[in-house]
């Protein structure tokens, strides 16, 4: 279907975008990568009056890291993460997950921050952001505010962003040398959205798990963090039995929604299997011998 009639304004900086969104009075939509927004407009499910195109806003590009975190400006495209954005296990985890985000031409255009603003329950980025408690910076007429991922996701396609606010940056904690990461996803075809996906990070010291984060995609109508499973892992040796117990807890704590290709029961089962796979990968990835040094802030 052809796109419905819409106005288009291209802005050159974040402040201009905020002014344009304010002028639009609720009828504005931020056009970043557009790989979901333009698609939804074709389906007639999104009908903004004006597209505020931020692709030429120079202050919304770039990544930086330091002070224990990785900062992604709003127009960081998936491909940047796929290529490895930082020499930290976080960079490895993001690259692993990026390979599951659509396919190369979409990854060359779509953005990480856009995925968080779009808040699709199946989104890999939303699940990882929830697991690692990303900090999302939004700018509106009243200035900037920061929201933790725990408070960001309110429902399918619903976030705590107001219509006149623009996501300018997302910060994720660096995981620290020695941290193991894993990612597992199940989908019907390579072009499908995730039926369920799991991303995790684990940290060991003296043979015991000292830190664990587990994020679940499509386990509920919002991305979930499997906190009960994380707690169960702490102090264990990360063996297959510990992983199986954590997977069971994560699946039990999920609140999956059924759909024609995937009943709630099936999705819950798949989540357990995926948690097991992702954790097994993460424990194999964790470097038990490396001097761990100072504990990273995320633990």
């Amino acid at each position, binding site marked *: 279907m052809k796109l419905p009639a819409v106005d288009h304004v*291209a802005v050159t900086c974040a402040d201009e975008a905020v002014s344009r969104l304010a002028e639009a009075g609720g009828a504005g939509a931020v056009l970043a990568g*557009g790989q979901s927004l333009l698609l939804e407009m074709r389906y007639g499910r999104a009908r903004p009056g004006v597209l505020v195109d931020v692709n030429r806003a120079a202050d919304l590009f770039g990544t930086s890291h330091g002070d224990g975190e990785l900062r992604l400006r709003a127009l960081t495209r998936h491909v940047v993460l796929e290529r490895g954005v930082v020499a930290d296990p976080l960079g490895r985890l993001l690259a692993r997950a990026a390979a599951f985000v659509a396919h190369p031409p*979409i990854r060359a255009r779509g953005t990480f921050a856009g995925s968080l603003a779009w808040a699709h329950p199946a989104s890999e980025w939303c699940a990882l952001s929830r697991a690692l408690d990303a900090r999302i910076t939004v700018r509106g007429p009243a200035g900037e505010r920061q929201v933790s991922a725990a408070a960001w996701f309110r429902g399918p396609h619903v976030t705590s962003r107001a219509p006149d606010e623009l996501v300018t940056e997302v910060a994720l904690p660096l995981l620290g040398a020695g941290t193991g990461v894993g990612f597992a996803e199940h989908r019907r075809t390579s072009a499908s959205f995730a039926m369920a996906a799991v991303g995790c990070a684990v940290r060991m010291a003296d043979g015991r798990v000292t830190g664990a984060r587990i994020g679940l995609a499509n386990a509920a109508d919002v991305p979930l963090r499997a906190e009960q499973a994380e707690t169960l892992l702490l102090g264990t040796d990360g063996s297959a039995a510990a992983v199986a117990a954590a997977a069971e807890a994560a699946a039990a704590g999920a609140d999956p929604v059924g759909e024609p290709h995937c009943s709630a029961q099936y999705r819950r089962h798949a989540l357990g299997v995926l948690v097991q796979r992702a954790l097994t990968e993460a424990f194999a990835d964790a470097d038990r011998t490396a001097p761990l040094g100072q504990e990273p802030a995320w633990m």
Partner: protein
Amino acid sequence: MDVTMVVNGQPRRVAVEPRDSLGDALRDGLGLTGTNLGCEHGVCGSCTVVVDGVALRSCLLLAVQCDGSSVRTVEGLAEGGPAGKRLSPLQEAFSAEHALQCGFCTPGFLILLDQALADDPELDRHEQALDELLAANLCRCTGYVGIRRALVRAARSLRGDPAVGEDAPR
């Protein structure tokens, strides 16, 4: 409003509405109907074109976003003037390896793989990357085997490696 782009090396100006996709502008505005619009929601990849050196879906990009950009479409692949165009090595390889049947997806595959070969001349040796790339576009006729062989043949030909016969083991 008017949008100015360099299309296949030629400066072009086209009148568009904000809602027109790049694919619409190329086909309806500039008459470049080699680019096929299939699903129009980013899945099939038939509409893939190269914008400023990056292969993108022209159905999920507005023409107004491409003002000042350089765009490459399937019409830009064959070499030489209008009087005597010669197929590019990739196009030759598609023909030699029977990498198309109905041909609808072919422009999208050609432009996707042409840019990928420019970015990575050894793409044929990077099997996982090649699998990922081939999965980006849909072909419902060939089963992808011919397309993969064509990519391998083109990569070898572009590198000047010994040519492979159609029945040679690969």
